[in-house]
């Protein structure tokens, strides 16, 4: 039993936030180990500690039995630890060869020329040995390669620098199913030569397929370490998601809503910034007085979906209707005028101008119409009153409307944003990750307010990566995976394990009772 990597009692704190809480992890040489957990569980932080990007607040790291104190990734690389990030560290217009050797280029002729011949020989040899198949592509610019090929370039990069331990951060996020299989083949090739692999994932199916051992993290803590061989999906889902239930907020019976469909989305298709199809054929209708929650792990198309519905991004195909009226061709401002409230996932870039004070932020989205905008002028008195009202009602602290938004904590910023949006008395509410980075008290408050919108007859669409939140709030739950809804179920019909499986792209063995369904 040869331990390649050992993390003992690792704790990592950022100011008040504890990202890793006394986590232990041991990985045997020549094996594949999965680090599994939901968003925010602390997986990336832990690996960043191993890779030298962070110093642990407490605890020790051992590589190959030696105590490791990495001050930077360079130290980690020197100790044989390589990382393949989720967003590749590649220079797209440059060739495969140039990327692999970047920073490590051998030179000839007294430094006047990079020794491409030598790079090529080494790279080809490595490519052969580990079955990476890039030997013929050394001259190809990386931007012309598929995602799977780019990932293999990253692997070659790590091999070229002498890595023995490979950390993969969410490696399958950008791959097609075939490429995923190829990746797992590569894992085998690497471990066959005594290399050690750790990969971060939220997809438990993959963890079971590819890994020998699995460590599950939840909320910064290690909740279990198991052998993949003897574990079922349900057991993993239970570990990942847990049975922890927040205070069940008082609410009217689920499913009690009006008859009219206030928000309808038909056959929506949206492309993301990279030109990839991010949303494919999404249909959903939300009635007045209903909350539909979209569950799913980040990156499965939720953001482009929200953007297309709210007018931030144009859809490629399909229709969006507010109260029966097609808004697909309308501008953002026109949608706002038709009773849309939008709590975006990125409050710091979108929902608030950080340098502006709260009074100025209070009118964002309504600056052109009464009561704030009349005939081109802004009534700052009304804006101030509004800001103060929101601050008061949503308990924003510190309660000073003249402070710039950036001086508020994340939770208070979010409360302000939610307050501003919901106070429009909207007909359609779209809330993306409404309580991300928010403390418990504020979280409950925001939930109450969303439920109040529901009472008032608005159609509410909530997107969240937190299953608890979705289950708490929703009358119906749509699970989004890879650009479309894998299922839409009543809020109280599915168990958390079933939802967890759906979110991970798996189908639960027992189908979820449909009830109201779509």
């Amino acid at each position, binding site marked *: 039993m040869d331990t390649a990597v050992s993390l003992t009692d690792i704790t990592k704190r950022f100011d008040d936030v504890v990202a890793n809480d006394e986590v232990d992890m041991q990985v045997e040489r020549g094996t594949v180990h999965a680090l599994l957990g939901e968003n925010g569980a602390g997986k990336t932080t832990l690996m960043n500690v191993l890779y030298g990007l962070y110093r642990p607040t407490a605890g020790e790291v051992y590589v190959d039995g030696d105590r490791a104190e990495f001050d930077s990734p360079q130290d980690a690389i020197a100790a044989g630890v390589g990382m393949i990030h989720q967003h590749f*560290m*590649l*220079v797209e217009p440059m060739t495969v060869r140039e990327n692999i050797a970047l*920073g490590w280029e051998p030179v000839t002729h007294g430094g006047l*020329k*990079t020794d491409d011949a030598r790079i090529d020989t080494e790279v080809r040899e490595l490519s052969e040995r580990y079955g990476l198949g890039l030997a013929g592509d050394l001259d190809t610019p990386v931007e012309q390669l598929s995602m799977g090929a780019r990932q293999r370039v990253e692997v070659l990069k790590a091999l070229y620098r002498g890595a023995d331990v490979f950390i993969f951060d969410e490696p399958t996020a950008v791959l097609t199913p075939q490429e995923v299989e190829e990746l797992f083949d590569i894992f085998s090739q690497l471990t066959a030569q005594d290399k050690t692999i750790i990969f971060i994932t939220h997809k438990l199916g993959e963890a079971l397929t590819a890994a020998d051992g699995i460590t599950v993290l939840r909320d910064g803590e290690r909740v279990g370490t198991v052998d993949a061989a003897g574990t079922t999906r349900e057991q993993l889902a239970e570990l990942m998601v847990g049975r922890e239930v927040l205070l069940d907020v008082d609410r009217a019976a689920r499913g009690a809503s009006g008859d009219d469909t206030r928000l309808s989305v038909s056959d929506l298709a949206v492309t993301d910034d990279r030109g990839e199809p991010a949303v494919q054929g999404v249909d959903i209708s939300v009635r007045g007085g209903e909350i539909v929650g979209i569950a799913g792990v980040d990156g499965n198309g939720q953001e482009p979906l929200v953007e297309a519905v709210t007018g931030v991004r144009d859809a490629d195909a399909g229709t969006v209707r507010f109260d029966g009226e097609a808004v697909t061709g309308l501008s953002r401002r026109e949608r706002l005028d038709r009773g849309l409230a939008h709590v975006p996932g990125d409050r710091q870039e979108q929902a608030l101008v950080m340098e502006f004070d709260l009074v100025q932020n209070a009118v964002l989205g309504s600056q052109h119409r009464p009561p704030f905008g009349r005939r081109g002028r802004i009534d700052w008195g009304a804006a101030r009153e509004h800001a103060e009202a929101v601050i008061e009602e949503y308990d924003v602290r510190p309660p000073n409307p003249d402070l710039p938004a950036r001086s508020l904590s994340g939770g208070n910023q979010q409360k302000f944003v939610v307050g501003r949006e919901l106070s429009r008395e909207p007909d359609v509410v779209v809330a993306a990750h409404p309580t991300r980075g928010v403390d418990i008290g504020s979280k409950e408050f925001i939930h109450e307010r969303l439920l109040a919108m529901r009472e008032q007859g608005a159609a509410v669409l909530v997107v969240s990566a937190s299953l608890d939140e979705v289950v708490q709030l929703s009358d119906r739950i749509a699970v989004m995976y890879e650009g479309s809804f894998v299922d839409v179920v009543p809020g109280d019909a599915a168990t958390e394990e079933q939802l967890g499986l759906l979110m991970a792209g798996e189908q639960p063995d027992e189908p979820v009772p449909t009830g109201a369904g779509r």
Partner: protein
Amino acid sequence: MSATATARRWVFAGALVLAVLAALRLVVPVGSVPGRMLASVLDVGYASSVLRLTVPIAFAALGGIFAERAGVINIGIEGFLIVSALTTVIVARRLPWAGVTGPAALWLAFLVGVLVSVAVAAVFAVLVVRYRSNQVIAGLAVWLIALGLAPFITFTLFDSSSPTIDTFGTWSVPLLSELPVVGPVLFDASPTVYMLLVATPLAWYALRYTRLGRRIRACGENPKALATGGVSVSRVRYAGVLISGVLAGVGGAGFTVGQVGTFVAVGQTSINGRGFLGIVAYLFGNYNPFAAVGGAMLFAGFDSLQLRLQQIGALDIPAELFGILPFVVVLVTITLVRRTRVPAALGEPYEGEE
């Protein structure tokens, strides 16, 4: 660096030029004054002067390529040119007092001019990389400072605002300069032209095949990739800006001591926007050294055309229109044939390094 996009531009520009010439040909009767003009324009002397006028623009363009591909916007290249031109003239005038005369003095002046440009580039680099100065404004500031320094120093040191010096003259390559057409154009030219002919492929080679060149390219596209490779992003950016200082310095110094032998220090100075033309040249050429120099030649072509036409005699088209024609051509081209692939991380200060 999309080769097809660059090629498309060249076709467009070439077509534009041909269209202009064709139009002139149609409109203009042979044997008339304009007809003779047209004929005289398309001759060897013209080609030589185009090549000569290309030098400052092309060196500015090459310099700009290195800075921007490393991720630093360098609008102030015009300032580098002005400073090096000014310095060269000053040193060339003053060296005789120290007993140094003749070609040695000229070459020494040239060298000092380049060094001063590098010094200015170093200051710019520190401000922009270390102190995260707003790159566009800092570049403009460098230019404005140079515009003020030039007349100030000139008036202080000399009695006139356009002191004159000797020039390098031309170097003749034996045998090769006897070749028809190509000979007198390429092989009997100012040393600065030869420098350009050498520098251009060198720049291309450096960016493609040397370690530093590759790191510079990576720096402007994805500095994080460079940083995770253990390379200091700041150092590479410094290198890029300093190299642009060298090249711009050669352009400015070469312009005075290699060609015109004088430097008008007032107004827009003799440099007269050539640094900006250089910037446009490399944008037009998609950051490829050869294409950029080609673009510089395009502008020099119009510039030289104007001078020749003035020599021929009374013509209805005013010189000023020809003077602005390159700017117009470029504006049109850049607008219609967009798709300059700007380095992805251009202008963004790199966080994460102290």
